[in-house]
């Protein structure tokens, strides 16, 4: 949809919402923020209020037979999750309206714009953010603990509890669907199956809680973005995911997202939950996250082969070897094969 048409549909939609505006207000400053495999994100101003539109274009791409949640929740379900998270005091934007597929804008939602920096390279090393970085791991731990308190009976139907065995079956099928199973990926999956934790509780996970999805200001954590990979799983999964090598942006000596320490992340978690997973258990989920990143790289390759996307997708497919290196490195460090 062209920006002009998008703005026109937004004008009609926003007039009915409880956002202060004089008669005749029009959408201004409409700017596309990012591309994703599925969703578009737009920033715009309505009178004096900066807002964000998340929408799934009608031409949204899909990869057939992809068993798993790699392409994410529907936007309606994502909005629902954000609203549930908001009730637990997790820093998320207020959602003004959720629109179904039948709407002129397509499936979408409009939310508040939270000021802050979302590009990790802008805040990971800049002096202006040094005090923000000091407390960030603790804040992330606390935010995850809050997310994990969401009552799972309130979740949309698409987010069902899944056993780890079921998820491993899904990963195995996906590896074979791509027809390009690498020795390291298969070795990593076998290892994860053999070392899976038993009797882990199942909670709502953000599912993509990484440095690139944090909104940071000079005081610290301002918001948590991109909830489309939310699912149910063990609490340590979200914590370990944030510590995966691939999300450290080169600062591998800072295990928590390239900016923090394990002890601070777990202390933040404990401050809300009253307990925290032990540090060693996070390592298992770092291996899991590495395998997951490898699958994302393969998905990008599959999308490119299907004729969708530009050279970046083809290049990202080659980044699977980073995930494979991490898998072997982490398994080697674990000590048991």
């Amino acid at each position: 949809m062209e920006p002009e048409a998008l703005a026109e549909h937004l004008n009609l939609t926003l007039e009915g919402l409880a956002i202060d505006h004089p008669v005749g207000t029009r959408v201004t400053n409409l700017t596309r923020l990012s591309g994703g495999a599925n969703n578009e994100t737009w920033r715009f101003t309505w009178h004096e209020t900066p807002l964000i539109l998340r929408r799934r274009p009608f031409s949204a791409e899909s990869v057939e037979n992809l068993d798993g949640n790699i392409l994410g929740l529907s936007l309606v379900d994502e909005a629902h999750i954000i609203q549930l998270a908001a009730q637990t005091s997790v820093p998320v934007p207020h959602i003004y309206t959720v629109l179904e597929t039948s709407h002129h804008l397509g499936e979408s939602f409009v939310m508040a714009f939270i000021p802050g920096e979302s590009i990790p390279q802008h805040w990971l090393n800049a002096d202006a953010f040094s005090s923000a970085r000091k407390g960030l791991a603790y804040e992330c731990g606390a935010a995850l603990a809050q997310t994990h308190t969401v009552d799972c009976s309130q979740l949309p139907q698409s987010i069902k509890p899944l056993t780890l065995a079921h998820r491993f079956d899904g990963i195995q099928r996906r590896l074979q669907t791509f027809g390009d199973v690498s020795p390291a990926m298969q070795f990593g999956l076998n290892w994860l199956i053999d070392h899976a934790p038993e009797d882990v509780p199942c909670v709502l996970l953000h599912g993509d809680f990484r440095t690139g999805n944090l909104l940071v200001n000079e005081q610290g954590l301002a918001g948590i973005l991109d909830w489309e990979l939310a699912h149910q799983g063990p609490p340590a999964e979200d914590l370990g995911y944030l510590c995966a090598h691939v999300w450290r942006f080169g600062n591998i000596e800072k295990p928590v997202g390239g900016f923090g320490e394990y002890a601070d992340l777990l202390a933040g978690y404990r401050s809300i939950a009253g307990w925290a997973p032990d540090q060693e258990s996070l390592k298992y989920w770092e291996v899991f996250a590495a395998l997951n990143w490898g699958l994302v790289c393969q998905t990008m390759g599959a999308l490119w082969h299907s004729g969708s996307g530009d050279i970046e997708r083809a290049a990202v497919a080659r980044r699977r070897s980073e995930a494979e290196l991490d898998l072997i490195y982490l398994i080697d460090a674990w000590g048991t094969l």
Partner: protein
Amino acid sequence: MGNFVTERDDSTTATSVTSQQLLQAVKGFIAETVTPALSDRNQFNARVAANVIGIVQREQALGPALSALDNAAFSKWIPDGAPDQDVVPQISQAIAKRTIEPDTAFLDYLKQRQLLLSAINNPRYANRAAAAEKWRYLDTDAHSAADTR
């Protein structure tokens, strides 16, 4: 292993241009001429394109070592396999069927494989240096490759 960066031969008698030198010329053209002339997304994609040429160059140099490593692993762990077909999928299938014991010898093969693959695809990946240091006891072309980017 072969050089990643092939320079022009500035002697006046050189006439032939290798495929490595052609790729280097294309990469230079993209980086120095095309990229600055573009904006936004296309400029980003042009940078990606220059990196992709680098992957191809490194694969030309290290691909034979990777194939040799995989063939040796295939002979060792899948003696009854089909050597006239792709060996890597057969290795992956054997891992999936758990007919290969996941011991330290096999892990060493995977370490060597990943050092080579990451030397081809992204030698600057941060964890690569840590892995290369820790696995320095392994005899592999990837170690010298890591120093030649």
